[in-house]
């Protein structure tokens, strides 16, 4: 039983990196990033291609994934500066779909719709031993990300991005350029998503374009909205809730036989939708957070 729980924790840890990235971008800076799965996809494919066709060591693939995702965030950042937030949301949604289209079409590099099988595991071997080491590795990356995250939040940089979220014009009136901060935040969030993608590719062992649909972005949005926008605890709790919900429904099927499995998929999507609605209306600050009132 515990090996299966380790598997859930590993996937949760992978998704926490995505939630942290989005918390930094939306929770702290107010950037409506609906294209998060695009950076996740870039990280996954970089790791997959380099570790199979490129036959590079895994670490190289992971770092390359982070860099490429970060680089991809820069043009998005430049666009972000000139757009109102809901327009930016639509543009980022378009970005993640374009990434998926490029991955689908450029088969010479990405094997297109066939996907890339046989991606080496983070740590070889079978059973709970290696699984625990993988969990430790991804967990360690989480800890580093949280430390860096706290360092940023408690610093003048963190203060400034929250100021941008609260009132961008006031920041300009005080002689500071929001653009620089927005781009850095987008790049940081993208780097985290890239690393998360790299871990995902090595853990699942197979990547294909249809694993990177917008639904992944909205799952992460649901996690940070339920957990608590703008807070690390919110990102962690939210991701745990999301994974518990997505995986829990696997057991639910055994215990509630009258719900046919076909309906289970619709119920899962419906529950995600309902959570998004109810939390946005009745508990905007999420379970953990109360960023609206600091004291």
């Amino acid at each position: 039983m515990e090996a299966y729980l380790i598997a859930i924790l590993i996937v949760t840890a992978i998704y926490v990196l995505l939630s942290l990235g989005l918390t930094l971008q939306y929770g702290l800076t107010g950037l409506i990033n609906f294209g998060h799965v695009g950076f996740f996809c870039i990280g996954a494919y970089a790791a997959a291609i380099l570790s199979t066709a490129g036959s590079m060591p895994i670490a190289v693939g992971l770092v390359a994934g982070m860099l490429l995702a970060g680089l991809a965030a820069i043009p998005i950042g430049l666009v972000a500066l000139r757009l109102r937030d809901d327009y930016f949301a639509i543009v980022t949604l378009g970005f993640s779909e374009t990434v998926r289209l490029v991955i689908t079409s450029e088969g010479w590099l990405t094997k297109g719709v066939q996907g890339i099988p046989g991606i080496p595991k983070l740590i070889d071997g079978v059973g709970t031993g290696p699984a625990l080491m993988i969990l430790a590795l991804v967990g360690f990356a989480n800890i580093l990300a949280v430390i860096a995250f706290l360092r940023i939040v408690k610093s003048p940089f963190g203060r400034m991005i929250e100021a941008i979220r609260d009132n961008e014009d006031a920041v300009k009136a005080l002689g500071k350029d929001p653009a620089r901060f927005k781009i850095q935040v987008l790049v940081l969030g993208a780097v985290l998503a890239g690393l998360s993608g790299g871990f995902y590719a090595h853990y699942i062992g197979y990547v294909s374009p249809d694993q990177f649909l917008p639904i992944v972005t909205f799952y992460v949005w649901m996690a940070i909205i339920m957990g608590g926008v703008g807070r690390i605890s919110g990102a962690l709790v939210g991701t745990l809730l999301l994974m518990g919900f997505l995986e829990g429904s696997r057991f639910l099927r055994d215990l509630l036989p009258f719900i046919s499995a076909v309906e289970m998929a619709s119920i899962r999507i419906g529950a995600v939708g309902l959570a998004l609605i109810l939390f946005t209306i009745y508990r905007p600050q999420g379970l953990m957070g109360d960023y609206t009132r600091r004291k």
Partner: protein
Amino acid sequence: MTIDRRTILQAGASALALGLAPQGAFAQAEAYRIGALNPVTGAGSPYGSGMAEMIFAAVDEVNAAGGAAGRRLQVFADDTQTNPQSAVLAAKKLIEVNKVNAILGTWSSGVSLAVIPLVNDANILLMHTSGAPALSTPPANAKGYGYRFQATNDRFGRAFAEIAVKEGYKRPATMAFNNASGIGNTQGFKKAWEAKGNKVLAEVVYEPNQPSYRAELQKVLAARPDVIVMGSFLPDTTIILREAFQSGANVKWIIPGWAANPQLIRALGNEATEGVISVDSVANEQSASFARYDAAYRKGQSQPGASNVYAAMTYDMVITLALAIEAAGPGAGTAQINAKIREVANPAGDKVFSFAEGKTALAAGKKINYEGASSVLDFDEFGDVTPDFGVFFITKGQLERRYVVKI
């Protein structure tokens, strides 16, 4: 899946299995645990629940005949959602929580490619219905524990080429749904067709869920083909055939069976589907095994067995596996059972059409050759079945099988 006695019973059993040892007449030999990992939701949802249901039905049949090598078969069902991530997690649960000895019924190539490493690591069997060629060769099938009950995509392509030659077509074009199986079919056709020294006039790969496919159709029709070979699924085939008919094109079609089925005819009517050639790995309709499967499928899904060829395959998976367990004798591990699979299914040996028949023949010391419901089930060295292909012509709204193509 309708609510009936067995589903509730099964749920109780599986909840029981989470903690307690199984009871019942087979207390002495440990139950053989089967993981039914099927695409109940997502792109494979039209086939998934039928596939799962037939695994239960076949297991009931085997247990009713006294089990295999004294061991009762037990099933744990889970949903791949036709996506690799949840398939991997479901497989891990089946392997680590339910401790299954075999996983049956993964459908899409992506899912099987993601699950097969876990199966190899856990030294258990995987029987799937995916088309991707990568599943036959190492590293995916390095241990030979993977068996493919569906013809590979390029086998379909080769069958299409044979049919095109037989029907005297000279100017083929291809249209493929942009995913692994769609492109696998048209590439398979192109390879086989060009190997015969001919040329494919136009090739189009289209994206799913478009408001219209006219531009794609137009590009293909501009090359004036006499036949269009499709690698497609039901929804897109419905739209493309309708738009072709409504744009006045009169061209012949060769379409995989899962896209050119009774539902397509019901959607478009007889006139638009007249003369369409539907190709599918021929199920042994005449065989007694198909009759038993068909009865079980009608009882569970109240639909004809022929409408879900994948369910016939999962039915055969259980029977073949059970016969191999029986042949390997009590206390056999995966390796011994694996060694027996080709023995009980491939040609050398008396033809048997059910588990009971096979069991009595084995008991009498004879060699057997199980002829399945989905096909004759002769596995090559890669663990792939080499079925024949039934060629059906849609005439006045009926699927009429005219001949069989062997490759």
